[in-house]
């Protein structure tokens, strides 16, 4: 953002030199930061992912350059299912967060009375709870023979009928939804606030039903902002570690967890880097979309 603002300031001819220096100075710290902590690691990870390590019978390593790591990512059942699992979890979490957050945001925007006010205060709570704590809470809450199962059994659910949520994909999705909800709701609420009351009232005056107002006015006007929120949640979930580590199944694993295992437990930094590139490419899809939306805003 700083880049764009300073570039605009350059337009005036008289103070051109001074503002150019100031602009460079302003950009320099963030550029340095990005270079050291983002660009160089990304390039290193890319380079590492093309390093192939072979081992002889005595455990000595030899190194060469090749595409073997990428072949393995596709050919190995374990690694391939990890990639698919990661995309599945991210898409499922984002879709559910979007629907629930939209309903809450609508209630906050158009709802009146004490229940809407109460909702307005309570929905923000997960934002202040660290994901580790939330994950452990979910385990005791949703585990088989956990809190919820206990209550259901007390009112007649047979033992063993409670579905497996913890140590399963469902556990990851539920916890990610719970953690992401406040952010998405805050974002959607501000988007919905931008839609003026007069627009909705005039639609109502000409006889539009609530559904028509939602379908033809609220939804289209909130879509761009909402999709930016979706992008952020997608990025957060796809690179997550804590929640899938604590609540996920032993296999398949999400890429964040699998990457750590390959790096620290299996001593396979080359496969780990290849998985990092996979996460990077998946995130890139979302990032490109986000940048394009921002670009459109700048034009406006």
């Amino acid at each position, binding site marked *: 953002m700083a880049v764009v603002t300073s570039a605009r300031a350059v337009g005036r001819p008289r103070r051109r030199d001074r503002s150019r220096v100031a602009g460079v100075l302003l950009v320099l710290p963030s550029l340095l930061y990005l270079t050291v902590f983002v660009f160089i690691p990304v390039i290193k990870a890319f380079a590492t992912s093309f390093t192939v390590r072979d081992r002889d019978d005595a455990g000595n390593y030899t190194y060469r350059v090749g595409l073997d790591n990428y072949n393995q990512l596709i050919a190995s059942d374990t690694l391939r299912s990890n990639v698919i699992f990661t995309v599945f979890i991210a898409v499922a979490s984002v879709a559910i967060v979007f629907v629930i957050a939209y309903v809450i945001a609508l209630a906050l925007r158009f709802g009146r009375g004490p229940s809407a006010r109460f909702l307005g205060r309570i929905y*923000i709570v997960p934002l202040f709870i660290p994901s580790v704590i939330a994950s452990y809470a979910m385990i005791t809450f949703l585990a088989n023979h956990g809190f919820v199962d206990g209550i259901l059994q007390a009112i007649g659910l047979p033992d063993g009928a409670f579905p*497996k949520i913890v140590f399963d994909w469902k556990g990851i999705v539920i916890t990610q939804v719970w953690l992401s909800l406040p952010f998405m709701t*805050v974002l959607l609420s501000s988007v919905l606030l931008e839609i003026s009351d007069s627009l909705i009232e005039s639609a109502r005056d000409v006889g539009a039903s609530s559904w028509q107002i939602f379908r033809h006015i609220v939804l289209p006007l909130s879509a761009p902002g909402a999709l930016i929120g979706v992008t952020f949640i997608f990025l957060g979930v796809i690179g997550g570690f804590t929640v899938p580590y604590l609540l996920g199944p*032993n296999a398949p694993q999400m890429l964040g967890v699998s990457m750590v*295992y390959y790096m620290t*437990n299996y001593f396979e930094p080359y496969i780990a880097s290849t998985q990092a590139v996979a996460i990077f490419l998946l995130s890139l899809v979302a990032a490109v979309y986000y940048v394009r939306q921002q670009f459109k805003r700048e034009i406006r």
Partner: protein
Amino acid sequence: MKRWLRPITPIIAALFIVTACGGSTPSAGGSAAPSAAGSAATSAAPEDKELVFYSGGDTNVQDLHTKQIIPAFEKATGIKVTFTFLEHGTGAQGIYDRIKAQKDTGKAQWDIDLWESDTGYYTRPDDLFLQVGASDIPNLAKVPKPTLDFVQNKAIPYRGSSVVLAYNSDKVTNPPQTYDDLLAWIKANPGKFAYNEPSTGGSGDAFVISMIYKYSDYQKYVTQPFSAANEKDWDAAFAALKALAPSLYSKGVYPKGNAGTLDLLNRGEIWMGSVWSDQSTQALAAGQLPKSVKITQINPAFNGGAAYIGITKNATHKQAAMKYLNFLLEPAQQSLIVTGAMSGYPGIDWQYMPSDARTRFSGADKEYRLWPGGTYGQDMQRLWHEKVAQ
């Protein structure tokens, strides 16, 4: 939104300050200590009057040395011990490099006498540690030979722990005696046994390693260097583990971490599991596990490991260092390790231990098997994920 945030801002600011201060303390302690140690080790007398001891690990290791062993040793021998502790092996490589630098520059007297760290350091080809035997340290005669062979006598094992079998004695009256018994029990009691995911804690690894030792000769792993050919035997072991999954907790859910298995035992979800000797004994002492949970060791045993201390090859105070290690291996000091907060196994054989120490691990006061770890360990964990996890 804003009204919500305003009262919280000072709290967040306070948290930042607290974490910032907390982070600075250990580094301050770490930087002050080496200079003190350096000045202590300057002169060498025929009769050593001091000893420089570097150690790392958890705070319970620090407490054991500083509060119990060192004061008793100083009182008994009059030797002054300078003890430097680095928590959780932080800077272990730095200490190693410091010792190596003294070798490389040809110094005749090195300024660190004793070093306690990860086992792998003692046998590195740099050859920085003194090979010791019972003639130097008489109590070494009481130490089981395999644990000394494991480090080529270049360090002495003074405490240990192993994986044991924990069981709920309300439900299990006759715990299995062998690994095959255990496998039969698991099949006969579906859903009542769990071992944790190997990558997340050693007590899970031990169950898998026992299966590997069932299909592959144990001696190959403790007496020979790494050979990838041995891993060909593992396919049968992993197939057997995969076949066992439907009989395990939740039809093949592997809890995360050593604590995961203890948690399932505590909640009564499982009746049996593989756990660490020290962790389970501490949990029992703290009331975190019901009294009905008991531990036992199968035969041949699950694997375990020892913590080692090595004497540097050109230590300035070699005699004092040997005295300290001999003192540490006395049954009296070994009992402190077993019955104290550490709940460790002794470094010497159980048969030399007093009976009150043995009763703490009654049923599991036995020798354990070893596992070389390293490349074998990395491969075992990866292959388990590829071939067993579901």
